[in-house]
């Protein structure tokens, strides 16, 4: 399940839409400059503290009991299992606490669950809850509530984003198909203990069953299988157990909360919290005038410079967990040849692309996982440094010979490839760079710009050679490679038995030390038989006002992970 900015790409898309023409001009000029100069002082990852707290705007100082954070496009579905966009998830993360949390490296740590054990065969999970936990209305939180939550996810009418079937809970499918009235794999041993039995081991199972907990007494009133109508009426009236309690939603404007007196980690020190709707075109001005205390910004040198000049901004830069890529349609005869695929990676100047787009706040992706993950290890993994000579050599070996106009030909067919892209900043730069780079190795690139849904549907229909898109936020290395598993890569037709085997092995154990070498091996195999051209990893920039302390966001927890500690400086 995605955290924080699953729609991390969404703001970027919107920005691109609004100022597209301006950006294209900007990028074009940047691309033309062969040497790209960076500011001397590149901001380091982590928190850069404010230099002058006295600059905090007066408007912000007037708010003595309230912290305001920016949010882009909440849609009003405040149920952690039914929201449609990632912004609503940012809201539900305030209202609902998870059973099992992530630390800043993506490792699982106790949340509402005090501890858990996994049977030696990796199929049975015993989850122990903390004592005396309550929902915000004072009603007790027990293992029954957790079992109820997981049951709802298996309901045949459940249409949310969480795909619980990937946890393979015993009897879940029988319940869904109406063959059983409850899920046999969910056993409430006592009010504080839940045993979950699954049919196969999975490294991501714990994060799937360890999500937010819905109150059975509140959400389950009159629940029977196939009848979620009542539950749906509660999307705007959430009852949770997170750091804050929901007060009010004013569509398009703000969402208000007050501190939860029953929060299991203690009442948060700031009495009131508000999400205010902002957007990238003016969120800096809102932060500057003190209308907001926290917001996310584009990680570009200009934006960082502006924030530094404010003096009162604690600037926070952290790595995102997603990566961008260009997928090969391996069903196409030309791309079936691994040498052609390798040549297309060698022949693309990805460093230039990343420099132009992220201006020092991004890096070329070498593995299908972000550098912040525990699984990241590039030793012995082919980095495919830009090397047109090597690309030409590989294409020659593959039998593609230069034709009269410089475009390579084999068996009477020209090496022409269509590239599907959606409109966003990365792609605005990718098209001219890739076109020029590939022209030089005798490949004619034909970009097609479509909107995101159209891109995905055209890709599903197999009507493409190359398609550029980004992954969603990846919480586990398994999520980063699952797309290359033979049953999942039906669009591209990628199949590699060794990759399948390693993905299975990586997902079969929960022991990180055992998983590390498996993923390392997998990344080497994937590099030699590439299913995609990995493009880049990016960084995320946010800032908080010096009048508040405690914000320490990371990609796994977002800003909501800090909320229990956010304090207004007196």
């Amino acid at each position: 399940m995605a955290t924080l900015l699953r729609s991390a790409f969404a703001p970027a898309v919107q920005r691109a839409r609004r100022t597209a023409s301006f950006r294209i001009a900007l990028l074009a000029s940047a691309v033309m400059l062969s040497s790209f100069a960076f500011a001397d002082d590149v901001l380091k990852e982590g928190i850069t503290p404010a230099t002058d707290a006295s600059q905090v705007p007066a408007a912000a100082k007037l708010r003595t009991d309230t912290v305001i954070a920016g949010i882009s496009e909440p849609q009003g579905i405040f149920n952690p299992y039914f929201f449609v966009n990632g912004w609503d998830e940012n809201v539900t993360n305030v209202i609902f606490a998870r059973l099992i949390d992530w630390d800043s490296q993506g490792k699982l740590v106790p949340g509402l669950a005090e501890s858990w054990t996994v049977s030696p065969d990796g199929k049975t999970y015993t989850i122990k809850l903390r004592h005396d936990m309550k929902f915000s209305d004072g009603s007790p939180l027990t293992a029954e509530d957790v079992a109820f939550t997981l049951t709802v996810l298996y309901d045949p009418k459940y249409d949310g984003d969480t795909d619980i079937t990937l946890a393979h809970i015993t009897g879940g499918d029988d319940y869904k198909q109406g063959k059983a009235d409850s899920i046999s794999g969910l056993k409430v041993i006592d009010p504080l203990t839940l045993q979950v039995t699954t049919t196969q081991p999975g490294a991501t199972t714990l994060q799937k069953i360890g999500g937010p907990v819905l109150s059975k007494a509140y959400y389950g009133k009159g629940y029977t299988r196939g009848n979620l109508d009542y539950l749906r009426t509660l999307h705007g009236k959430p009852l949770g157990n997170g750091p804050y309690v929901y007060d009010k939603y004013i569509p398009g404007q703000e969402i208000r909360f007050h501190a939860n007196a029953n929060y299991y980690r203690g009442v948060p020190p700031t009495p009131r919290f508000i999400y205010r709707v902002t957007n990238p075109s003016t969120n800096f001005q809102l932060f500057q005038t003190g209308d907001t205390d926290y917001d996310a910004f584009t990680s570009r040198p200009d934006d960082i410079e502006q924030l530094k000049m404010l003096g009162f901004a604690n600037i926070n830069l952290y790595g995102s967990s997603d990566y961008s890529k260009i997928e090969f349609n391996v069903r196409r005869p030309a791309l079936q040849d691994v040498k052609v695929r390798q040549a297309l990676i060698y022949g693309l100047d990805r460093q230039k692309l990343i420099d132009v787009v992220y201006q020092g706040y991004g890096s070329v992706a070498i593995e299908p996982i972000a550098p912040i993950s525990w699984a990241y290890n590039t030793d012995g993994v082919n980095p495919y440094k830009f090397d047109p000579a090597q690309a030409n050599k590989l294409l020659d070996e593959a039998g593609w010979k230069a034709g009269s106009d410089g475009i390579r030909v084999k068996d009477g067919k020209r090496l022409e490839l269509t590239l599907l892209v959606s409109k966003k900043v990365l792609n605005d730069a990718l098209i001219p760079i890739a076109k020029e780079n590939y022209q030089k190795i005798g490949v004619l690139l034909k970009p097609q710009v479509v909107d995101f849904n159209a891109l995905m549907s055209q890709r599903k229909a197999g009507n493409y050679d190359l398609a550029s898109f980004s992954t969603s936020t990846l919480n586990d290395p398994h999520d980063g490679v699952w797309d290359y598993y033979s049953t999942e890569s039906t669009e591209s037709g990628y199949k590699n038995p060794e990759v399948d085997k390693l993905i299975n092995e990586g997902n079969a154990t929960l022991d990180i030390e055992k998983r590390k070498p498996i993923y390392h091996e997998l990344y080497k195999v994937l590099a030699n038989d590439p299913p995609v051209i990995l493009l880049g990893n990016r960084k995320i920039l946010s800032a908080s006002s010096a009048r508040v302390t405690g914000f320490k966001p990371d990609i796994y927890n977002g800003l909501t992970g800090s909320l229990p500690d956010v304090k207004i400086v007196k």
Partner: protein
Amino acid sequence: MRLPDLSGSFNEKVMRNFILRRLLQTIPMLFLASLLIFMLFAKTPGDFIDGNITLTAQRAAELKALYGLDQPLLSRYLHWLGNLLRGDLGFSLQYQIPVSQLLNQYIWNSFLLATIAMVLYWGIALAVGIVSAMKPYSLFDHVVSIVIFAAMSFPTFFLCLLLIKWFAVDLHWLPVGGMTNTGSDATGWAWVAQVAAHLVLPVVALVMLQAGSLTRYFRASMLDVVRMDFIRTARAKGLRERTVILKHALRNALLPIITLLGFELPGLFSGALITEKVFNWPGAGHIHIDSLAARDYPVLMGFTLFLAVLTILGNLIADVLYAWADPRIRVRS
């Protein structure tokens, strides 16, 4: 015995028939529009589920079945139409609330902003247009032309940001954006004052962008009328210039403008996309665009149809006003 006022009842009857006929004509037009709108959106590549890259193929198929996206197009259309005829615009896939409720949350904010802006720029355009037509090619006329062309030529985005920079960030006179102060529980006049303060900058932006073209229309229309024979007659009969312009010329100059007024009706509800976005105004503009990006069909179709109805209605109102103001039209129809 009192004689019936023949002329009055005749006029009323003609008018009633005219309106009735036009209303009947709109029915097939609306059906056609609904079919067109449905097909256009249904045939756009990619559906609500396709954009979600985290779903497995099996889960995607399940969800398509739950939403009825696996049904043939015609049965989807008939289903939608059936609900529509019962007054049900459907349920938003993206927002999980009825479409009518969703629109209700946003369109009135757009309406407020657009109406205030419209009254202002129509007023300004009317006044400025008349004055510059009375003294064409004078210094005032030239200055006005330069100013309105300059205001019109600003890119919306840039103009909005500039206003924010000057009046909100540097001078602290007005809020950066939004509709009320964040966290405020103000009611009554305090609330009105807050909304008014938040309205100033977006209204100024909209007026600056819109007043120009309208001023040109008024000026051109006035100039046409002023050159006509009856105006010369009016002047020859010794009427004051004021009376000539305001009573004789203006009334006739307004006729072509009535059509424009009709076209404004859908615009009052559709939301000014860029202006609303930059000023964080909680209007309907972004709902339309977002639902297109997400392929939220019920919202897309409901909203577009709503605007289609307003367009047709706006035309109808323009025709009725026109017929009311100009008897020649009525006789011919």
